[in-house]
Protein backbone atom coordinates (compact mmCIF):
# COMPACT_ATOMS: atom_id res chain seq x y z
CA UNK A 1 0.00 0.00 0.00
CA UNK A 2 1.33 3.40 -0.99
CA UNK A 3 -0.01 6.53 0.64
CA UNK A 4 0.71 10.19 0.14
CA UNK A 5 0.78 11.98 3.46
CA UNK A 6 0.40 15.68 4.34
CA UNK A 7 1.26 17.09 0.94
CA UNK A 8 1.07 20.66 2.19
CA UNK A 9 3.96 20.35 4.64
CA UNK A 10 7.62 20.09 3.70
CA UNK A 11 9.00 16.59 3.96
CA UNK A 12 10.62 16.57 7.44
CA UNK A 13 7.48 18.19 8.91
CA UNK A 14 5.30 15.65 7.15
CA UNK A 15 7.37 12.84 8.70
CA UNK A 16 6.99 14.45 12.13
CA UNK A 17 3.26 14.74 11.54
CA UNK A 18 3.17 11.05 10.63
CA UNK A 19 4.94 10.07 13.84
CA UNK A 20 2.62 12.30 15.85
CA UNK A 21 -0.39 10.63 14.29
CA UNK A 22 0.99 7.25 15.34
CA UNK A 23 0.82 8.39 18.97
CA UNK A 24 -2.33 10.50 18.74
CA UNK A 25 -4.35 7.78 17.01
CA UNK A 26 -2.93 5.12 19.36
CA UNK A 27 -1.38 3.21 16.46
CA UNK A 28 1.75 2.95 18.60
CA UNK A 29 2.36 3.39 22.32
CA UNK A 30 5.75 5.01 21.86
CA UNK A 31 8.07 6.24 19.14
CA UNK A 32 11.83 5.77 19.22
CA UNK A 33 13.45 8.36 17.02
CA UNK A 34 16.22 10.95 16.81
CA UNK A 35 15.56 13.91 19.06
CA UNK A 36 17.59 17.09 19.48
CA UNK A 37 17.57 17.99 23.14
CA UNK A 38 17.46 21.63 24.24
CA UNK A 39 21.13 21.28 25.16
CA UNK A 40 22.61 20.27 21.80
CA UNK A 41 21.54 20.02 18.18
CA UNK A 42 23.11 16.55 17.95
CA UNK A 43 20.15 14.17 17.84
CA UNK A 44 20.06 11.26 20.24
CA UNK A 45 17.79 8.23 20.03
CA UNK A 46 14.85 9.05 22.28
CA UNK A 47 11.82 7.04 23.32
CA UNK A 48 8.85 9.39 23.07
CA UNK A 49 5.38 9.04 24.51
CA UNK A 50 4.21 12.69 24.41
CA UNK A 51 3.31 13.63 20.85
CA UNK A 52 3.90 17.35 21.57
CA UNK A 53 7.58 16.61 22.11
CA UNK A 54 7.81 15.15 18.62
CA UNK A 55 8.00 18.72 17.32
CA UNK A 56 11.65 18.63 18.33
CA UNK A 57 12.30 15.21 16.81
CA UNK A 58 14.57 15.16 13.77
CA UNK A 59 13.97 11.72 12.27
CA UNK A 60 15.63 12.69 8.99
CA UNK A 61 18.64 14.55 10.40
CA UNK A 62 21.84 13.39 8.67
CA UNK A 63 23.46 12.47 11.96
CA UNK A 64 23.66 9.30 14.02
CA UNK A 65 26.00 9.53 17.00
CA UNK A 66 25.49 5.82 17.55
CA UNK A 67 23.94 2.86 15.81
CA UNK A 68 20.39 3.20 17.08
CA UNK A 69 19.74 -0.51 16.58
CA UNK A 70 21.53 -1.13 19.86
CA UNK A 71 19.25 1.32 21.65
CA UNK A 72 16.19 -0.12 19.93
CA UNK A 73 17.24 -3.58 21.08
CA UNK A 74 17.16 -2.36 24.67
CA UNK A 75 13.59 -1.12 24.34
CA UNK A 76 12.67 -4.32 22.51
CA UNK A 77 14.62 -6.75 24.67
CA UNK A 78 11.27 -8.24 25.69
CA UNK A 79 7.64 -7.84 24.75
CA UNK A 80 5.93 -5.79 27.48
CA UNK A 81 2.70 -5.48 25.55
CA UNK A 82 3.46 -2.01 24.14
CA UNK A 83 3.73 -1.29 20.44
CA UNK A 84 6.88 0.67 19.74
CA UNK A 85 7.44 2.48 16.46
CA UNK A 86 11.17 2.68 15.78
CA UNK A 87 12.59 4.98 13.14
CA UNK A 88 15.92 3.62 11.95
CA UNK A 89 18.27 3.94 9.01
CA UNK A 90 18.42 0.93 6.67
CA UNK A 91 21.77 -0.18 8.15
CA UNK A 92 20.29 0.04 11.62
CA UNK A 93 17.30 -2.05 10.52
CA UNK A 94 19.74 -4.68 9.23
CA UNK A 95 21.58 -4.63 12.54
CA UNK A 96 18.34 -4.97 14.47
CA UNK A 97 17.34 -7.98 12.39
CA UNK A 98 20.73 -9.57 13.06
CA UNK A 99 20.29 -8.85 16.76
CA UNK A 100 16.90 -10.52 16.79
CA UNK A 101 18.51 -13.63 15.31
CA UNK A 102 20.92 -13.54 18.23
CA UNK A 103 18.02 -13.34 20.70
CA UNK A 104 18.98 -9.82 21.70
CA UNK A 105 15.50 -8.45 21.05
CA UNK A 106 12.04 -9.29 19.76
CA UNK A 107 10.55 -7.48 16.81
CA UNK A 108 6.94 -8.56 17.51
CA UNK A 109 5.99 -5.35 19.34
CA UNK A 110 7.95 -3.14 16.93
CA UNK A 111 6.69 -1.12 14.00
CA UNK A 112 9.82 -0.72 11.91
CA UNK A 113 10.00 2.54 10.02
CA UNK A 114 12.89 3.44 7.76
CA UNK A 115 13.75 5.85 4.97
CA UNK A 116 15.70 6.05 1.74
CA UNK A 117 18.98 6.92 3.37
CA UNK A 118 21.21 9.68 2.06
CA UNK A 119 23.79 8.96 4.73
CA UNK A 120 24.88 10.46 8.00
CA UNK A 121 27.52 13.05 8.74
CA UNK A 122 30.20 12.68 11.35
CA UNK A 123 29.17 14.40 14.57
CA UNK A 124 31.51 17.39 14.30
CA UNK A 125 30.51 17.99 10.69
CA UNK A 126 26.83 17.92 11.64
CA UNK A 127 27.37 20.29 14.54
CA UNK A 128 29.11 22.69 12.15
CA UNK A 129 26.11 22.51 9.86
CA UNK A 130 23.71 23.00 12.75
CA UNK A 131 25.67 26.06 13.89
CA UNK A 132 25.12 27.79 10.54
CA UNK A 133 21.65 26.53 9.63
CA UNK A 134 18.42 26.92 11.56
CA UNK A 135 17.03 23.81 9.95
CA UNK A 136 19.95 21.48 9.15
CA UNK A 137 17.54 18.67 8.32
CA UNK A 138 15.87 20.49 5.41
CA UNK A 139 19.14 22.11 4.33
CA UNK A 140 20.71 18.67 3.94
CA UNK A 141 18.00 17.37 1.63
CA UNK A 142 17.94 20.58 -0.41
CA UNK A 143 21.71 20.75 -0.97
CA UNK A 144 23.39 17.99 -3.04
CA UNK A 145 26.83 19.24 -1.94
CA UNK A 146 25.99 18.51 1.66
CA UNK A 147 24.92 15.01 0.70
CA UNK A 148 28.51 14.42 -0.43
CA UNK A 149 29.76 15.40 3.02
CA UNK A 150 28.50 12.22 4.66
CA UNK A 151 30.89 9.75 6.26
CA UNK A 152 32.94 7.38 4.04
CA UNK A 153 30.94 4.25 4.82
CA UNK A 154 27.70 6.01 3.83
CA UNK A 155 29.24 7.26 0.60
CA UNK A 156 30.08 3.65 -0.22
CA UNK A 157 26.78 2.14 0.96
CA UNK A 158 24.77 0.33 -1.70
CA UNK A 159 21.94 -0.78 0.55
CA UNK A 160 20.37 2.59 1.29
CA UNK A 161 16.82 1.50 0.44
CA UNK A 162 15.13 -0.14 3.44
CA UNK A 163 14.42 -3.88 3.45
CA UNK A 164 12.22 -5.82 5.86
CA UNK A 165 10.48 -2.77 7.30
CA UNK A 166 6.81 -2.15 8.03
CA UNK A 167 6.78 1.38 6.64
CA UNK A 168 9.23 3.05 4.25
CA UNK A 169 9.47 6.82 4.04
CA UNK A 170 10.29 7.55 0.39
CA UNK A 171 12.83 10.35 0.22
CA UNK A 172 14.48 9.57 -3.09
CA UNK A 173 12.80 11.54 -5.87
CA UNK A 174 11.12 13.68 -3.22
CA UNK A 175 13.40 16.71 -3.20
CA UNK A 176 11.11 19.15 -5.03
CA UNK A 177 7.88 17.76 -3.60
CA UNK A 178 5.97 18.43 -0.42
CA UNK A 179 4.71 15.82 2.01
CA UNK A 180 6.02 12.28 2.18
CA UNK A 181 5.10 9.06 0.43
CA UNK A 182 4.67 6.11 2.77
CA UNK A 183 5.00 2.54 1.54
CA UNK A 184 3.98 -0.45 3.60
CA UNK A 185 6.25 -3.46 3.52
CA UNK A 186 4.21 -5.86 5.66
CA UNK A 187 0.70 -6.55 6.89
CA UNK A 188 1.53 -4.69 10.06
CA UNK A 189 2.58 -1.66 8.05
CA UNK A 190 -0.46 -1.87 5.82
CA UNK A 191 -2.76 -1.85 8.85
CA UNK A 192 -1.07 1.27 10.13
CA UNK A 193 -1.36 3.06 6.79
CA UNK A 194 -5.01 2.06 6.41
CA UNK A 195 -5.89 3.50 9.81
CA UNK A 196 -3.92 6.62 8.94
CA UNK A 197 -6.13 7.16 5.91
CA UNK A 198 -3.99 9.10 3.45
CA UNK A 199 -4.65 9.34 -0.28
CA UNK A 200 -3.60 6.23 -2.13
CA UNK A 201 -0.96 6.97 -4.74
CA UNK A 202 1.97 5.62 -6.73
CA UNK A 203 5.65 5.80 -5.89
CA UNK A 204 7.13 9.26 -6.52
CA UNK A 205 7.81 9.57 -10.23
CA UNK A 206 11.47 10.45 -10.02
CA UNK A 207 12.25 7.89 -7.31
CA UNK A 208 13.82 5.14 -9.39
CA UNK A 209 15.88 7.62 -11.39
CA UNK A 210 17.08 9.21 -8.17
CA UNK A 211 17.97 5.81 -6.70
CA UNK A 212 19.91 4.88 -9.85
CA UNK A 213 21.78 8.17 -9.74
CA UNK A 214 22.77 7.70 -6.09
CA UNK A 215 23.65 4.05 -6.67
CA UNK A 216 25.98 4.85 -9.56
CA UNK A 217 27.84 7.43 -7.50
CA UNK A 218 28.10 5.15 -4.53
CA UNK A 219 29.36 2.26 -6.59
CA UNK A 220 32.27 4.43 -7.67
CA UNK A 221 32.97 5.42 -4.08
CA UNK A 222 32.73 1.83 -2.96
CA UNK A 223 35.24 0.64 -5.52
CA UNK A 224 37.63 3.38 -4.44
CA UNK A 225 37.14 2.45 -0.81
CA UNK A 226 37.59 -1.28 -1.18
CA UNK A 227 40.62 -0.91 -3.45
CA UNK A 228 42.20 1.48 -0.96
CA UNK A 229 41.39 -0.70 2.02
CA UNK A 230 42.62 -3.88 0.32
CA UNK A 231 45.98 -2.18 -0.23
CA UNK A 232 46.10 -1.26 3.47
CA UNK A 233 45.95 -4.90 4.49
CA UNK A 234 47.58 -6.65 1.55
CA UNK A 235 50.00 -8.33 3.91
CA UNK A 236 50.78 -8.37 7.58
CA UNK A 237 53.52 -5.74 7.33
CA UNK A 238 51.22 -3.21 5.66
CA UNK A 239 48.43 -4.06 8.06
CA UNK A 240 50.79 -3.27 10.94
CA UNK A 241 51.15 0.26 9.57
CA UNK A 242 47.40 0.61 9.16
CA UNK A 243 46.64 -0.20 12.77
CA UNK A 244 49.86 1.13 14.29
CA UNK A 245 48.04 3.96 16.10
CA UNK A 246 45.41 1.72 17.65
CA UNK A 247 45.11 2.30 21.40
CA UNK A 248 43.18 -0.88 22.16
CA UNK A 249 40.34 1.27 23.48
CA UNK A 250 37.86 -1.17 21.88
CA UNK A 251 35.54 1.69 20.98
CA UNK A 252 34.96 0.02 17.62
CA UNK A 253 33.73 -3.07 19.41
CA UNK A 254 31.44 -1.10 21.70
CA UNK A 255 29.98 0.90 18.80
CA UNK A 256 29.45 -2.14 16.60
CA UNK A 257 25.80 -3.23 16.60
CA UNK A 258 26.50 -6.86 15.73
CA UNK A 259 29.52 -7.34 18.03
CA UNK A 260 27.06 -8.21 20.71
CA UNK A 261 28.81 -10.43 23.29
CA UNK A 262 28.17 -9.03 26.73
CA UNK A 263 31.42 -10.57 27.88
CA UNK A 264 33.92 -9.99 25.11
CA UNK A 265 37.02 -12.12 25.49
CA UNK A 266 39.23 -9.07 24.96
CA UNK A 267 38.02 -7.42 28.15
CA UNK A 268 38.27 -10.56 30.27
CA UNK A 269 41.23 -11.87 32.23
CA UNK A 270 42.35 -13.83 29.17
CA UNK A 271 43.94 -10.65 27.87
CA UNK A 272 44.71 -9.04 31.23
CA UNK A 273 48.18 -10.54 31.17
CA UNK A 274 50.00 -11.22 34.40
CA UNK A 275 53.48 -9.69 34.76
CA UNK A 276 55.21 -13.04 34.22
CA UNK A 277 53.43 -13.42 30.87
CA UNK A 278 54.46 -9.93 29.81
CA UNK A 279 58.05 -10.59 30.90
CA UNK A 280 57.98 -13.86 28.99
CA UNK A 281 56.82 -12.14 25.84
CA UNK A 282 59.39 -9.41 26.24
CA UNK A 283 62.10 -12.03 26.67
CA UNK A 284 61.03 -13.78 23.48
CA UNK A 285 61.45 -10.71 21.30
CA UNK A 286 63.44 -8.30 23.41
CA UNK A 287 60.43 -6.06 24.00
CA UNK A 288 56.68 -6.16 24.20
CA UNK A 289 54.30 -3.35 23.35
CA UNK A 290 51.64 -2.68 25.98
CA UNK A 291 48.69 -2.72 25.33
CA UNK A 292 49.32 -6.11 23.77
CA UNK A 293 47.40 -8.07 21.15
CA UNK A 294 46.36 -5.20 18.88
CA UNK A 295 46.61 -7.18 15.65
CA UNK A 296 45.02 -10.13 17.35
CA UNK A 297 42.06 -7.99 18.40
CA UNK A 298 41.35 -6.64 14.94
CA UNK A 299 41.75 -9.96 13.15
CA UNK A 300 39.67 -11.83 15.71
CA UNK A 301 36.88 -9.29 15.63
CA UNK A 302 36.77 -9.59 11.86
CA UNK A 303 36.80 -13.37 12.00
CA UNK A 304 33.98 -13.35 14.54
CA UNK A 305 31.56 -10.98 12.85
CA UNK A 306 32.63 -10.04 9.32
CA UNK A 307 29.79 -12.20 7.99
CA UNK A 308 27.29 -10.01 9.85
CA UNK A 309 28.80 -6.56 9.21
CA UNK A 310 25.99 -4.21 8.16
CA UNK A 311 28.38 -1.49 6.99
CA UNK A 312 27.12 1.28 9.29
CA UNK A 313 30.60 2.74 9.72
CA UNK A 314 30.25 3.51 13.43
CA UNK A 315 33.57 1.75 14.14
CA UNK A 316 35.44 4.35 12.08
CA UNK A 317 33.46 7.24 13.54
CA UNK A 318 34.36 6.37 17.13
CA UNK A 319 38.05 5.64 16.53
CA UNK A 320 40.18 8.17 18.43
CA UNK A 321 43.16 7.38 16.17
CA UNK A 322 41.24 7.83 12.91
CA UNK A 323 41.94 4.30 11.75
CA UNK A 324 39.58 3.50 8.84
CA UNK A 325 38.22 0.44 10.63
CA UNK A 326 34.98 0.44 8.64
CA UNK A 327 36.77 0.54 5.29
CA UNK A 328 38.72 -2.56 6.30
CA UNK A 329 35.66 -4.27 7.70
CA UNK A 330 33.44 -3.53 4.72
CA UNK A 331 36.13 -4.79 2.34
CA UNK A 332 36.76 -7.99 4.26
CA UNK A 333 33.10 -8.67 4.92
CA UNK A 334 32.24 -8.36 1.24
CA UNK A 335 34.41 -11.44 0.58
CA UNK A 336 33.35 -13.35 3.67
CA UNK A 337 29.66 -12.73 3.08
CA UNK A 338 30.06 -13.83 -0.51
CA UNK A 339 31.78 -17.00 0.73
CA UNK A 340 28.90 -17.88 3.02
CA UNK A 341 26.26 -16.57 0.62
CA UNK A 342 24.95 -14.63 3.60
CA UNK A 343 23.65 -11.08 3.47
CA UNK A 344 23.04 -9.61 6.92
CA UNK A 345 19.60 -8.15 7.46
CA UNK A 346 18.26 -9.54 4.21
CA UNK A 347 16.31 -12.54 5.44
CA UNK A 348 15.08 -12.53 9.06
CA UNK A 349 14.44 -16.29 8.88
CA UNK A 350 17.97 -17.19 7.88
CA UNK A 351 20.25 -18.16 10.77
CA UNK A 352 23.88 -17.08 11.14
CA UNK A 353 26.09 -19.18 8.86
CA UNK A 354 28.09 -20.52 11.82
CA UNK A 355 24.90 -21.99 13.24
CA UNK A 356 23.93 -23.87 10.13
CA UNK A 357 24.88 -27.53 10.22
CA UNK A 358 24.92 -29.17 6.84
CA UNK A 359 22.99 -32.26 7.84
CA UNK A 360 23.89 -34.25 4.74
CA UNK A 361 27.53 -34.05 5.83
CA UNK A 362 26.67 -35.34 9.27
CA UNK A 363 25.35 -38.68 8.08
CA UNK A 364 27.69 -39.07 5.13
Amino acid at each position, binding site marked *: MIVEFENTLNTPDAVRAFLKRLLDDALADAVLTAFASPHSPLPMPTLMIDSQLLDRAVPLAPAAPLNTARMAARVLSKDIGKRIAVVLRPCEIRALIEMEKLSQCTLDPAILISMDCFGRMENDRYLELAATQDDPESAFYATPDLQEAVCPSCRACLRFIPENVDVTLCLAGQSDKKGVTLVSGSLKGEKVLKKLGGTSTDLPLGRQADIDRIMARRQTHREEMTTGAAARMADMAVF*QQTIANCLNCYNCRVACPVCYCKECVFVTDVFAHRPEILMGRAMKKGAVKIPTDT*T*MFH*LTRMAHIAHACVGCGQCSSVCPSSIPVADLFITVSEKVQEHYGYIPGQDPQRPWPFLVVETD*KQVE
Partner: protein
Amino acid sequence: MATREPKIIALVCNWCTYTAADLAGTSRLIYPANVRMVRFMCTGMIDVKYIIKAFLEGADGVFVGGCHPGDCHYINGNVKAERRISGLQVLLEQFGIDPKRFTLKWIGASEGPEFQRNMQEFTRTIAELGPQIESDMMIL
Protein backbone atom coordinates in the same frame (compact mmCIF):
# COMPACT_ATOMS: atom_id res chain seq x y z
CA MET B 1 66.27 -16.83 8.45
CA ALA B 2 64.83 -17.88 5.11
CA THR B 3 66.01 -21.42 5.63
CA ARG B 4 64.72 -21.91 9.13
CA GLU B 5 62.70 -25.00 9.90
CA PRO B 6 58.97 -24.46 9.47
CA LYS B 7 56.93 -24.17 12.63
CA ILE B 8 53.61 -25.94 12.50
CA ILE B 9 50.85 -25.85 15.06
CA ALA B 10 48.40 -28.73 14.92
CA LEU B 11 45.09 -28.21 16.71
CA VAL B 12 43.63 -31.68 17.07
CA CYS B 13 40.53 -33.35 18.41
CA ASN B 14 40.94 -35.52 21.50
CA TRP B 15 38.72 -38.29 20.14
CA CYS B 16 40.24 -38.90 16.73
CA THR B 17 43.30 -37.09 15.43
CA TYR B 18 44.98 -37.02 18.81
CA THR B 19 44.27 -40.70 19.27
CA ALA B 20 45.59 -41.30 15.75
CA ALA B 21 48.77 -39.47 16.74
CA ASP B 22 48.99 -41.73 19.77
CA LEU B 23 48.57 -44.76 17.53
CA ALA B 24 51.25 -43.44 15.19
CA GLY B 25 53.51 -43.15 18.21
CA THR B 26 52.89 -46.63 19.55
CA SER B 27 53.28 -47.98 16.01
CA ARG B 28 56.68 -46.27 15.84
CA LEU B 29 55.66 -44.20 12.82
CA ILE B 30 57.91 -41.19 12.50
CA TYR B 31 56.52 -37.78 11.62
CA PRO B 32 58.32 -34.41 11.39
CA ALA B 33 59.27 -32.74 14.63
CA ASN B 34 58.12 -29.41 13.19
CA VAL B 35 54.62 -30.20 14.33
CA ARG B 36 53.55 -28.95 17.77
CA MET B 37 50.26 -30.42 18.78
CA VAL B 38 47.56 -28.85 20.91
CA ARG B 39 44.76 -31.12 22.06
CA PHE B 40 41.17 -29.91 22.04
CA MET B 41 38.10 -31.81 23.14
CA CYS B 42 36.52 -31.15 19.74
CA THR B 43 37.42 -29.16 16.63
CA GLY B 44 34.06 -27.45 17.16
CA MET B 45 35.54 -25.63 20.18
CA ILE B 46 38.48 -24.23 18.25
CA ASP B 47 37.72 -20.54 18.20
CA VAL B 48 39.25 -18.66 15.30
CA LYS B 49 41.33 -16.65 17.74
CA TYR B 50 43.52 -19.67 18.51
CA ILE B 51 44.39 -19.99 14.85
CA ILE B 52 45.02 -16.25 14.47
CA LYS B 53 47.17 -16.32 17.59
CA ALA B 54 49.25 -19.18 16.19
CA PHE B 55 50.00 -17.23 13.02
CA LEU B 56 50.76 -14.01 14.89
CA GLU B 57 53.14 -15.82 17.22
CA GLY B 58 55.16 -17.04 14.28
CA ALA B 59 53.59 -20.29 13.12
CA ASP B 60 54.20 -20.95 9.43
CA GLY B 61 51.26 -23.28 9.13
CA VAL B 62 48.25 -24.38 11.14
CA PHE B 63 46.78 -27.85 10.86
CA VAL B 64 43.38 -28.68 12.26
CA GLY B 65 42.51 -32.35 12.62
CA GLY B 66 39.04 -33.62 13.45
CA CYS B 67 36.74 -36.61 13.19
CA HIS B 68 35.22 -37.74 9.93
CA PRO B 69 31.79 -36.21 9.36
CA GLY B 70 29.22 -38.30 11.21
CA ASP B 71 31.79 -39.54 13.74
CA CYS B 72 31.89 -36.45 15.96
CA HIS B 73 31.82 -37.33 19.65
CA TYR B 74 29.58 -34.28 20.13
CA ILE B 75 27.30 -34.99 17.16
CA ASN B 76 28.38 -32.25 14.74
CA GLY B 77 31.20 -30.13 16.19
CA ASN B 78 33.51 -31.02 13.31
CA VAL B 79 31.04 -29.81 10.69
CA LYS B 80 30.65 -26.53 12.56
CA ALA B 81 34.42 -26.20 12.69
CA GLU B 82 34.67 -26.73 8.95
CA ARG B 83 32.15 -23.99 8.30
CA ARG B 84 33.83 -21.51 10.60
CA ILE B 85 37.31 -22.31 9.37
CA SER B 86 36.39 -21.96 5.70
CA GLY B 87 35.40 -18.35 6.40
CA LEU B 88 38.64 -17.70 8.26
CA GLN B 89 40.56 -18.93 5.25
CA VAL B 90 38.81 -16.35 3.07
CA LEU B 91 39.59 -13.68 5.65
CA LEU B 92 43.26 -14.49 6.20
CA GLU B 93 43.89 -14.67 2.48
CA GLN B 94 43.13 -10.96 2.32
CA PHE B 95 45.91 -10.33 4.80
CA GLY B 96 48.39 -12.12 2.60
CA ILE B 97 48.27 -15.45 4.41
CA ASP B 98 48.23 -18.21 1.79
CA PRO B 99 45.20 -20.48 2.36
CA LYS B 100 47.53 -23.45 1.82
CA ARG B 101 49.18 -22.67 5.16
CA PHE B 102 46.06 -23.54 6.92
CA THR B 103 44.24 -26.82 6.49
CA LEU B 104 41.50 -28.90 8.02
CA LYS B 105 41.63 -32.68 7.66
CA TRP B 106 39.55 -35.52 8.98
CA ILE B 107 41.70 -38.24 10.58
CA GLY B 108 39.96 -41.04 12.48
CA ALA B 109 41.27 -42.62 15.68
CA SER B 110 42.42 -45.78 13.91
CA GLU B 111 44.27 -43.94 11.15
CA GLY B 112 47.80 -43.78 12.55
CA PRO B 113 49.53 -44.10 9.16
CA GLU B 114 47.09 -41.53 7.73
CA PHE B 115 48.15 -39.14 10.48
CA GLN B 116 51.81 -39.68 9.66
CA ARG B 117 51.23 -39.12 5.95
CA ASN B 118 49.24 -35.92 6.58
CA MET B 119 51.94 -34.49 8.83
CA GLN B 120 54.65 -35.27 6.30
CA GLU B 121 52.68 -33.75 3.45
CA PHE B 122 51.69 -30.64 5.33
CA THR B 123 55.23 -30.06 6.57
CA ARG B 124 56.49 -30.39 2.99
CA THR B 125 53.90 -27.90 1.74
CA ILE B 126 54.80 -25.38 4.41
CA ALA B 127 58.54 -25.86 3.84
CA GLU B 128 58.01 -25.11 0.15
CA LEU B 129 56.02 -21.97 0.96
CA GLY B 130 58.81 -20.75 3.24
CA PRO B 131 58.48 -18.73 6.42
CA GLN B 132 55.19 -16.87 6.80
CA ILE B 133 55.95 -13.63 8.55
CA GLU B 134 58.80 -12.42 10.61
CA SER B 135 56.93 -12.09 13.85
CA ASP B 136 59.77 -9.89 15.16
CA MET B 137 58.50 -6.99 13.10
CA MET B 138 54.99 -7.34 14.39
CA ILE B 139 53.48 -4.89 16.79
CA LEU B 140 51.08 -7.64 17.88
